[in-house]
């Protein structure tokens, strides 16, 4: 699903339960990472759940390729949203994305708060740091 499709879906929900249902569905649709890719290095710290993230650069296309996984349904769904924001963007485009703003417009800003321990902020920070190295 593209970020735009996700955006349309989430902004048309009318209750938290409905949003969570959609978020968890997004998580279900995100392919599981094979165990070999769930490395210590790929792990994003600062999450109550386990989150793994790989960010690569397609040298020929200059596009970013991201894959990730989490052992919780909700964080995995939120991760799917983040990945849809950044996948196949150039590092320059990626560096300009304001994920905070996007989560705000999706009505999910509370998921970025540090006390939720879901690490979405840590995930976004890691992607941004990597993108900036490639700019």
């Amino acid at each position: 699903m593209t970020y735009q499709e996700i955006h349309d879906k989430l902004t048309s929900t009318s209750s938290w339960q409905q949003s969570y249902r959609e978020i968890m569905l997004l998580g279900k649709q995100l392919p599981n990472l094979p165990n070999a890719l769930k490395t210590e290095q790929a792990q994003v710290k600062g999450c109550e759940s386990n989150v793994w993230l790989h960010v690569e650069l397609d040298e020929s296309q200059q596009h970013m390729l991201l894959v990730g996984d989490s052992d919780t349904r909700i964080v995995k769904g939120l991760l799917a949203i983040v990945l849809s924001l950044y996948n196949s963007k150039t590092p320059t485009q990626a560096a300009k994305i304001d994920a905070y703003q996007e989560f705000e417009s999706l009505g999910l800003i509370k998921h970025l708060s540090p006390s939720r321990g879901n690490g979405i902020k840590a995930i976004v920070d890691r992607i941004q740091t990597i993108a900036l190295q490639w700019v």
Partner: protein
Amino acid sequence: MSDIAQLRNDFVTLNQSIEGNPLVYLDSGATSQKPQVVINEINHFYSKNNANVHRGLHTLSERVTSQYEGVREKLAQFLGVFATELVWTSGATHSINLVASGLTNQLRYDDVILITALEHHANIVPWQQLAQRTGAKLKVIPVNDQGIICTNNVLAQIQKWQPKIFACTHASNTLGNILDVQVFIAQAKKIGATTIIDGAQAFLHLRPNLRQLDCDFYVLSAHKALGPTGLGILFGKYEQLNALPVYQTGGEMIETVTFDQTTFRQAPAKFEPGTPNISAVLGFGAAIDYLSNINFSAMHKYEQSLFKYLLEHLSAIKGVKLYGDLDNNIGTISFTFKSEHHYDLAMLLNSYGVAVRSGHHCTQPLMQALNLNGTIRVSLAFYNNHTDIDRFISALNNCIQLIEG
């Protein structure tokens, strides 16, 4: 019993909605809600009486000092001990650290510190660090698969290890188990061990008489027992307490100071340097008054009946697994649902206004022993009611549908 149910009205925080649903507060193990009298007392102090204690001849200081010391007296009565045996600290954590630091010189290489697998990190890490400082050994009494420690096993382990220090929780913050600490203490005393009991969870629900328990030290946190945050208590039998070296130094805890040396006051003053948390002490005084006016056996009965109701409904949900000692319990239960992550359940429950704790509850070694990465914890207090539990169970069923649907 209905009298107890009425008390809920004194807790205004409970009267609000979260995400459009009535708040169902089931996280009293993390911190209790505060009755209005406590909030009023703090308000009154800052708006009418604000002054420092033990420092002035003026009327306000005089008034506040006598109130402040009055709370120590009141709490001493409540606990069945002398006021001189109570030290104000910043919390149970601070209290344990004070004792663990103070016992450093009493330990030799290869001495044993014995704790249980149920302990909160606050009652593990200070002992572990003490062991590392001194070359002593930290030994742990294990739990069974259900998270239970049987009394006979504790007695046997005390006999086996002959510990110099025995530190044990009165009730588990994660599982709610009540431990038979009075029996443990008697056994530990026979072999000359120093006993420290962590009463952070037990105090509100069990109202122990510390003289009867006969432990050397007992610690608690005011905020888990209707009082404000940032205040803890260390009880120590006077001789043992006074024998501990000073922990932090500064003003108020001294007799005389020159640039070359200082003489310290006697306990409890020598452990209370600097300006104390006056408003919290006064607020906690109001909490003790409030608790004193509640008939303990009625409260206990009410809490236990709520807990039974909770267990009945929770265990009826297919896929729910309960942990801990369900019979001797302060009203706290940890559970898992199938292999679902506690994070998902807690977040979904919150969308129904239900506040629970999720995760390892500052007991990572216990989680490892139970082979879990975390649980959902429901912890009750007397201001909860049957409607809270009905709402929780209904929300949990809805969450399960959301996850599985």
